[in-house]
């Protein structure tokens, strides 16, 4: 492992009285896909903006590519690719013009930026729309254009703030597919998400954030192993679920979570638990599934990710 591309210790961001990021530590190594998982307001975007050198930290240490984001922000940004949460495309300009002007911000020659634009539009499957205005494009297409744009300077580090929020499932999969290819090529990705499936698919390693703090850190699989059981039995009820203790099931259930419309029973053998649960609790329906990061998050914070 080379020296980290991002190094943060006690990183803090305050807005007046409000502490958005509360003294977090993390490192991101070259070639890694690193994720910040957490609900809205957890401090993910504030962290991303500090990494993107557009928001000076209120405290702690932050080094990006070995440099200081406050004093050397411009030099650092020259080597970053940023996909912001809200699109910053010019709707009146064409797809191609948006890419070219963005490449020019990095000081690329017109010829060079045109060549790269053609390649990148091909990569994000937008070549046919090159001369169309951005305005009528779908949300998924705009996202892909934003991703292409972020790659125009051949960045060493790519920052993606909620890359698929607001996209329909098909568009999300297309974006994931492109990000996965970037990962295969050895790009370093840092992303925030409140979708646990996104984090599981894309991240080698992630931190779970809540209330500006890091609650846990590890690979998706590690976190699930460490903090949840292998399987989950979900019981749905027509009205409020009954209150039960884990002990009710003779050690078969490690933990119980009560949600408004269902009970989650954490167990290592779901199939063995189903008949027992059926008999005792008479649920409307039963589902056995594998544990996910959502369950890890629930365990850590008592809340679901997407509310």
């Amino acid at each position, binding site marked *: 492992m080379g020296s980290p591309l991002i190094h943060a210790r006690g990183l803090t961001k305050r*807005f007046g009285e409000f502490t958005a990021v509360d003294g977090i530590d993390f490192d991101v190594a070259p070639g890694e896909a690193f994720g910040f998982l957490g609900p809205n307001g957890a401090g993910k975007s504030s962290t991303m*903006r500090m990494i*993107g050198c*557009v*928001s*000076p930290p209120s405290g702690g240490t932050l080094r990006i590519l070995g440099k200081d984001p406050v004093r050397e*922000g*411009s*030099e650092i*940004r*020259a080597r*970053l690719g*940023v996909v*912001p949460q*809200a*699109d*910053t*495309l*010019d*709707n*009146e*300009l064409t797809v191609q*013009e948006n890419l070219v*002007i*963005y490449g*020019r*911000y*990095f*000081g690329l020659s017109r010829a060079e930026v045109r060549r790269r634009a053609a390649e990148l539009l091909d990569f994000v499957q937008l070549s046919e729309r090159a001369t169309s205005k951005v305005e009528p494009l779908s949300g998924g297409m705009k996202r892909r254009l934003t991703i292409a744009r*972020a790659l125009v*300077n051949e960045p060493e580090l790519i920052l993606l703030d909620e890359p698929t929020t607001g996209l329909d499932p098909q568009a999300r999969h297309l974006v994931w597919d492109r990000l996965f290819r970037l990962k295969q090529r050895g790009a370093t990705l840092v992303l925030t998400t409140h979708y646990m499936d996104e984090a599981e698919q894309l991240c080698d390693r992630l931190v779970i954030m809540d209330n500006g703090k890091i609650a846990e850190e590890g690979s998706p699989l590690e976190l699930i192993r460490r903090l949840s059981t292998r399987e989950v039995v979900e019981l749905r009820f027509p009205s409020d679920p009954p209150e039960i203790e884990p002990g009710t099931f003779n050690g078969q259930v490690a933990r119980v979570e009560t949600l408004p419309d269902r009970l989650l029973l954490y167990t290592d053998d779901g199939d063995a638990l189903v008949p027992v649960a059926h008999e005792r609790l008479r649920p409307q329906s039963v589902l056995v599934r594998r544990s996910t990061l959502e369950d890890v998050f629930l365990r850590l914070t008592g809340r679901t990710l997407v509310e």
Partner: protein
Amino acid sequence: MSYALRSYEYWLTVYRRVWRGTVASSVLNPVLYLAAMGVGLGSIVQKNQLGIPYLDYVAPGLLAAVGMQVASIESSFPVRGAIRWNRQYYAMLATPLRVGDLVTGHLMYVSTRVFVAVSLYLAAVTAFGAVHSPFALFCVPVCVLVGLAFAAPISGLSAWAEEEVFNPLFRFAVTPMFLFSGTFFPVERIPVPLRWLAYVTPLWHGVDLCRHLTLGTPTPLNTVGHLAYLLAWVVAGVWIARVAYRKRLVT
């Protein structure tokens, strides 16, 4: 400076889509104004009141006023748009560009717009026979300076304001200045306390300077005084704009 040029290039790219319309109105407007104010209204204004034909009096005033108007418009809605609508300033700040480059790049674009509009206006003024000295050519850079004296603080205001403030800005600041800063009649006709208000505006300084230039009567002291005053507005305005942009964009 080279980073500011990159931001300037964005504004030119946007302008390329709309330039035809702005050139058409930049040609039509002076013709209409000079015909109505200079020739029409001028025919009933007695020459001995001003010592010169009214057309000669009003034409340089309009020239400076156009510098103000174009600059004010180009530093209000476009700046708000780059922050709130297409969020292009945020796109720029994700690249090597810095806040100061955004301010400078935008003011370079405003200067270009004023340069084009005033050059066309000056051509019309010349065609109407209201130019009496080659000094008149200096009206173009003077009007660019007038434009910057407005554009710099207004772009700061556009970045700083939470609510849209352009209606009151144009209604209570830009339009009254257009009418009362010596454009159509001497400010000496305004009662004393209010007259000082006219002297404070950058526009009056631009109007008086342009008038001396088209009439061929500039004096060193007057010229330097006006230029220094306009420059002071630009310097203060750029400082305001940089603070306001930073407060809005770097949080």
